């Protein structure tokens, strides 16, 4: 079965410190993986995606994620958090050969403290 697990429902960091949002996946096929961000009262925005090219993917706003097949992980990181990073983050799996149903994690709420 295909699944996505976001290991933390809430993460709190101080401004200027690193961010780590964890995501594990399960897939029988070679997956495409995405991270989306949702700011309060705003639409979902793509941060970055992995589609079987480079395993280290760089996205917008200084975020990056590394696809690790051996660990079935796709953790999202940022070296230095900014107040504007406070939002809900979703890890998403797209199964190979099936683009119709993205499998969404339940989300991680990131709080950034001054």
């Amino acid at each position: 079965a295909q699944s996505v697990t976001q290991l933390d429902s809430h993460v709190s960091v101080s401004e200027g410190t690193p961010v780590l949002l964890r995501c594990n996946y399960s897939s029988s096929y070679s997956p495409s993986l995405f991270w989306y961000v949702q700011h309060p009262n705003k639409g979902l925005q793509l941060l970055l995606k992995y589609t079987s090219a480079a395993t280290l993917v760089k996205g917008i706003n200084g975020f990056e994620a590394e696809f690790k097949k051996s660990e079935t992980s796709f953790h999202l990181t940022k070296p230095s958090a900014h107040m504007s990073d406070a939002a809900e983050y979703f890890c998403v799996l797209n199964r190979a050969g099936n683009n119709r149903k993205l499998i969404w994690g339940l989300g991680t709420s990131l709080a950034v403290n001054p």
Partner: protein
Amino acid sequence: GAGVSQSPSNKVTEKGKDVELRCDPISGHTALYWYRQSLGQGLEFLIYFQGNSAPDKSGLPSDRFSAERTGGSVSTLTIQRTQQEDSAVYLCASSLAGGRGDTQYFGPGTRLTVL
């Protein structure tokens, strides 16, 4: 360019009434998706349109839900005889061709409240 737009942004209705939610995808995008996001939940897939192919309706929760896409562009999601459990944010997304690595671009959503 213009992104995905949805209307209305908010809809409050009484239990038992029908509602229509509209989605205007990005021009040229052949794939269109509807999702539902309930409080504290991830996104729930509802229905998918790709070009002229028959839509994938496998995510629709009941026969009260239906959707159509006219002329391969604008889509309408209809919920008949609304129930309180239908209250959620309904999101529409479009992508260029529906391919595996295609980015889905989301609209701002319609917040539906059923009293």
